[in-house]
């Protein structure tokens, strides 16, 4: 069950923020790890818009998740600068190792595509639980994953 008091506290902070729905969604996701469906009506009320509009915003943006994510979130850059340094092969390796397709989650891991971390002089890049690692490779991925998961 979602703690509705907590939801109201988080959402309430954005009531007076003009155009604040995105900020509010980030805060809800930060608090719960995803956007629970129970929060949609409350946000709709807060910003005086329809539930459908809130849903429309959530579904538009890649960042917003509507279900719980794995304990360790691995994000790999799929854009050109990393492609030029072998991110396609690295991605295949990571998919195999985690047993997940891009965009999929299990209890332990979530695997996501990112289109550029802005660290393109040190490609390929991947991020584990929010920590960015440059010059990632098949050789160092396992070590990075262990390190990242234990943090």
């Amino acid at each position, binding site marked *: 069950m979602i703690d509705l008091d907590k939801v109201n506290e988080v959402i309430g902070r954005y009531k007076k923020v003009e155009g604040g729905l995105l*900020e509010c969604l980030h805060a809800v996701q930060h608090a719960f790890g995803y956007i629970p469906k129970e929060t949609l009506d409350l946000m709709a009320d807060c910003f005086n818009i329809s539930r459908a509009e809130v849903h429309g915003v959530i579904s*538009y*943006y890649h960042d917003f998740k509507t279900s719980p994510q794995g304990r360790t979130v691995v994000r790999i850059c799929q854009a050109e600068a990393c492609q030029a340094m072998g991110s396609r092969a690295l991605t295949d390796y990571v998919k195999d190792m985690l047993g997940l397709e891009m965009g999929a989650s299990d209890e332990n891991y979530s695997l996501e595509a990112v289109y550029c971390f802005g660290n393109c002089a040190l490609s390929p890049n991947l991020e584990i639980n929010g920590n960015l690692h440059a010059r990632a490779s098949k050789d160092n991925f396992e070590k990075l994953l262990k390190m990242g998961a234990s943090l």
Partner: protein
Amino acid sequence: MINVYVPKDTASISMGANEVADAIAALAEDINIIRNGTWGMTYLEPLVEVETANGRIAYGPVRPEDVAGLFEAGFLRGADHDLRHGLTSEIEYLKNQERLTFARCGLIDPLSIDDYIKNDGFSGLSKALKLSGQEIIDDVTTSGLRGRGGAAFPTGIKWNTVLATKADQKYICCNADEGDSGTFSDRILMESDPFCLIEGMIIAGIAVEATKGYIYLRSEYPLCKSVLNNAIIIARQEKYLGDDICGSGKSFDIEVRIGAGSYVCGEETAMLESLEGKRGMVRAKPPLPAHVGLFGKPTVINNVLSLASIPIIMSKGGEFYKDFGIGRSRGTIAFQLTGNIKCGGLVEKAFGITLGELINGFGGGTYSDKAIKAVQVGGPLGAYIAEDNFNLPLDYEAFSEAGAVLGHGGIVVFDETANMKDQAIFAFEFCAIESCGKCTPCRIGSTRGVELIKAGNLELTKELCELMDTSSLCAMGGMTPIPVKSAMKNWPQDFKDV
């Protein structure tokens, strides 16, 4: 106390700068570790510097395991070591640049407002506070500054339009949604010299009579968020933001808003929708954002580097800035050398340098030591350029004539192992993933494009490119054909036997 500089930008941290700083701190007590921004010599990160009587001596790239050896060699005295590069200011990569917008990046502690002021900071603002809005804009017009986000629209004209539009509220929106692959110059500026962006925005606000500014920052840049928010708090405390800026009676304040992983929100009207808390759907123009922008009010939308170029233009004058560059491309532009390149990083140069000089001169060729096959300039919507075009001067008009774009100055190098058919397919795939869906050519065309190339139907692909180019609502669908067509034209052999 000896000053030791260890950078704290995303790139150096991703290479272990925090661990390096810890290792240095553990081995010496009588030193002062300063976490500066980055000089943009990314291939040397983490680049540790020691302040000596002769200047700052650079060592890099320093790994945590190198630290003990540096101490043994006597690096605190600037002694010799395999990683030593001599004086930072004498490193060719940096010395051969023209640092105007990025003059303070790497030099200062990003959150020290004293450092900022000691290095010319806020001198542009104090000059602007003595001028009328029109006089400020005239100086910006004289400088020849054009939008650094990629569209290269003259900044002075944009500001004039907003100044001439009467309204009870106007806004300055800084587009910090640097989504192009192969670009990080906005990030470096925001992480290494945040007050410069803040100063540029204040001047813009004073010029067009706007009192509120937003920085629309992409969510992939968490460090920028914290640096900017801290810098804004400091600027408020020091009376550079808020009511009565520096006792002038003028007001301006800034708020940072975070995007949510949508590339198309870098398009200015999609960005406005997103800032209003909506789906990032592109708006039809007209009306221009300068007339009807954020929350329906007149709005200046400028890229980070356009705004960060304003302080030096104000402080040294439009004529000074205009002296750099060639033709109608005036001033400097920040190039970013990325992908398969030996010496990747940020190179600020006056317009007019050639692609070859950048890639082979500054960049030192490919990281893999293999031959270069293709170079994509200007992000995912930019052309793939072959080596026979490396003498192309980097200016807006020359690139436009060659069917390419300079965009935000990102340069991605691919070696001979790249398959250009895969890159063309990716261009369409990326468009399909990131399209806002408002116009059909972009929403449907991108998916059909992937299918057509995979099926080997190049004739129909060309027709589709023509259609997307002429009938898409914004640059997302309109420019996706650029990388596709350039790949097909320059590397036809990669598209055979399908």
